């Protein structure tokens, strides 16, 4: 028995050595390939489901293209557009696209106006439950004039006509036999699982291993022409530390996103660059006046905001380089709407205390907590347990508010529970939360107006917004709308239904091997087909 054990140990050692040798000898050198480490897997990859827009726009081209220039989205015709030009009718309510001739799907079928009509008809089917079904709000009809011409009839002239007519177009010949229902479309081969979808963009999606990786390879049929890189592998690496080490050891060439705390180090490390997507994420404390009556006093909200030392919190977390103090709900990314005369709330605990004194909130019983008419200034603040930065921030704010005699009880919940309580049930007193800013400014409308809006979580109401928001939405031109939105944003900043904390960026770290990338607020992978890699 002992001899047998020795023999088997020896055999195992030889086998392992042979495997190591075979593996070492066979490791291939791969050129013109890059590996991108990402946090999450992609979901259902269809333009009408909107998720993973960065990837879907590389697979399904739209009639127009867009880019982020001078603080606004500009719509253009380029190699990623299915149309070669567009034209407005005399009254500007009909937008007609003239499609490029010879455009083909990756299976060789022609792309024509019927595909456009099919996509938009699918979008408005209730059972498809598309998150962007509201695109039809201003559209009367989408009509194929002929095989290469499609007309969008809008109810009225508006600045968002190019945006609303620009979603990725889906192949009718592939999806016409699929039931117009969410799960039937989402479970179609190539949309959510293994299978190669029929696409129009510069890349084909292949080798999809859910939860593990997927790859993009050149689409020889694409009107966009061949991409510069032969193969782009996306690897799903959920843990932040692992993703960073993979980059530093050369396991991947790009990681997205970079944990904020690592951004500074990586941006100064040799061999890497960190590109920023712009200050598109903002964080705030929402004061729910529906649930806690003292929050309906504007001076109380102002006092609480003045008691928060934002700069110190950012410095403490080491992210001050990648964040700017919020001056209201508008990101500094939108200069035509962001009013520079509005200032962020400074840290002035003395002024905060004076404001609360004036509002009648004094510590009459000497217990360290302010009170009025026998009621202490005490409330519950919710935060996310699975977001370390927000969790830490909530703790610091709790301590800072205690300094001015406000007693905050902190309760934390995982993200879905938090969402349900705060955004669905709106059953909270105060909550530390955050959103990313959308390309359209409708988030001002959804979050702050009207009082019964689905995402007006604080019950905020403003007579000024009652006139400004409808006027902004009815404006004919972008500049006219911008003026109304700017005035609305100033009003919101003055009323402070939230304590606006900061806007922060998200970084993408790239190896020095990669060049010619364009990464900004619009998208991380907007010109992935033009990226190049040193061989």
């Amino acid at each position, binding site marked *: *028995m*002992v001899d047998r*054990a020795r023999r088997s140990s020896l055999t195992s050692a030889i086998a*392992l050595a*042979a*495997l*190591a*040798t*075979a*593996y*070492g000898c*066979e*490791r291939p050198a*791969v050129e013109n390939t890059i*590996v991108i480490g990402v946090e999450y897997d992609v*979901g*259902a990859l269809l333009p009408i489901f909107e998720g993973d827009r960065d990837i879907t726009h590389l697979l399904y081209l739209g009639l127009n293209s867009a880019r982020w220039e001078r603080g606004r989205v500009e719509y253009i015709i380029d190699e990623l557009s299915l149309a070669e030009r567009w034209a407005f009718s005399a009254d500007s309510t009909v937008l007609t696209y003239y499609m490029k001739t010879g455009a083909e799907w990756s299976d060789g079928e022609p792309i024509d106006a019927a595909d456009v009509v099919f996509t938009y008809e699918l979008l408005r089917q*209730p059972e498809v*439950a*598309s*998150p962007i*079904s*509201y695109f039809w709000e201003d559209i009367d009809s989408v009509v194929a004039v002929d095989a290469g011409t499609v007309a969008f009839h809008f109810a009225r002239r508006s600045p968002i006509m190019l945006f609303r007519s620009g979603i990725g177009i889906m192949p009718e010949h592939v999806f016409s036999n699929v039931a117009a*229902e*969410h*799960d039937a479309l*989402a*479970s179609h081969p190539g949309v*959510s*699982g293994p299978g190669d979808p029929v696409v129009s963009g510069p890349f084909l999606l292949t080798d999809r*291993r*859910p*939860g*593990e*990786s997927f790859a993009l390879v050149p689409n020889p049929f694409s009107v966009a022409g061949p991409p510069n890189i032969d193969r782009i*592998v996306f*690897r*799903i*690496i959920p*843990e932040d*530390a*692992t993703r960073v*080490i993979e980059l530093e*050891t*050369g*396991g*991947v060439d790009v990681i997205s996103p970079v944990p904020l705390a690592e951004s500074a180090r990586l941006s100064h490390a040799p061999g890497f660059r960190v590109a920023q997507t712009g200050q598109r994420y903002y964080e705030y404390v929402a004061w729910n006046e529906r649930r806690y009556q003292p929050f309906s006093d504007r001076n109380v909200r102002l006092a609480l905001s003045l008691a928060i030392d934002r700069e110190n919190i950012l410095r403490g977390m080491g992210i001050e380089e990648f964040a700017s103090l919020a001056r209201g709900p508008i990101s500094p990314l939108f200069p035509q709407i962001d009013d520079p005369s509005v200032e962020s709330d400074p840290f002035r605990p003395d002024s905060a205390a004076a404001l609360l004194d004036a509002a009648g909130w004094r510590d009459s019983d000497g217990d360290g907590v302010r009170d009025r008419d026998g009621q202490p200034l005490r409330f519950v603040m919710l935060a996310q347990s699975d977001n370390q930065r927000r969790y830490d921030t909530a703790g610091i704010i709790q301590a800072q508010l205690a300094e001015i005699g406000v007693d905050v009880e902190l309760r934390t919940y*995982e993200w*879905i*529970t938090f*969402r*349900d309580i705060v*955004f*669905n049930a709106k059953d909270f007193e105060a909550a530390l939360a955050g*959103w990313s800013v*959308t390309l359209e400014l*409708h988030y001002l409308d959804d*979050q702050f107006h009207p009082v019964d809006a*689905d*995402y007006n979580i604080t019950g905020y109401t403003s007579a000024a917004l009652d006139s400004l928001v409808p006027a902004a939405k009815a404006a004919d031109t972008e500049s006219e709308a911008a003026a109304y939105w700017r005035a609305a944003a100033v009003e919101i900043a003055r009323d402070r239904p939230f304590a606006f904390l900061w806007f922060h960026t998200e970084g993408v770290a790239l190896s020095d091997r990669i060049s010619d990338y364009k990464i900004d607020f619009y998208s991380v992978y907007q010109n992935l087909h033009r990226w190049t890699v040193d061989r």
Partner: protein
Amino acid sequence: MTAYVARRLLGAIPLVLGILTLIFILMQMAPGDPTAMYIRPGVPPEVVQQLKTNWGLDQPLHVQYWRWMKSFASGDMGYSLSHHRPITAVLADRIPNTLILSGVSLVLIFAIGIAVGIVQAVRQYSLLDNALTFAALFIYSMPSFWLALMLILVFAYQVSFISWWPDWLTFPVSGMTDSVGYESLGFWGKLGDRVHHLVLPSIALGVSSAAAVARYMRSSMLEVIRQDYIRTARAKGLPERTVILKHALKNALLPIITLFGLYLPFLLSGAVLVEYVFAWPGMGRTIVDAISHRDYPLVMAVSFLFAVMVVIGNLIADVLYAAIDPRIRYD
């Protein structure tokens, strides 16, 4: 024995049903539902309501439960609301990944644990025994998440800066295979690549449990080697190795078999933290992601599998008892 096994299996049916019912109730009691991922500014509430209708979430609880139970009984595990695929397809992807990692870890757990336990028992109170006891307790008390990160830091990151360090001892940071060149490798190259990727996660997953098994094995072996028949074997002049490995080991393994039965469900459940750190797409990540997305059908299906594995694991342990110990008979 066959009648005993059949009886146990039949008895397990109400147990598994009870577990599933409990999980169904707990999931429904948790705040949020699968549509929560769609709740954000810009998404019309009608869309969220439509999804609820599509997924039957607007039906009363007993209707949802009955509908699920009926399709499950007919062999249809349902459709994953977060993966947008049939659950059988999701599980078919993930189970092999988990079996590979957990299987190798299980072998490590018992191979290392038994070997170390024997050495400690044979050299009781020696310097080696004390050192191994210290090491076992140290490793056992180490969180697997931290151990995994330390292994990556040393054996994937730090050693990559040492010029003379052999490539094959520089382990991949994460993943199951090389993401770029794997497909172009030959059979042995592919096997080598997979083994290379398995080394760190399987150690991270297995080593702390191996420390626990070693403690059990040590005490069990100590008890056995003090018995009369071992003294007799030594008196007969048998070499010490033969006494230990041939005569003592078989009896000392009895309590370890109980552990083996308890560890069997771990083959399928995987290990959430280790899978996250090493980007291993296994069952641990699947169940946690399913819970956080409130993907009810997937949670139910995975829970069913785990419950079945627990029942089977316990049954196998009992059957192995009888196979190894002739004193145990099931009638």
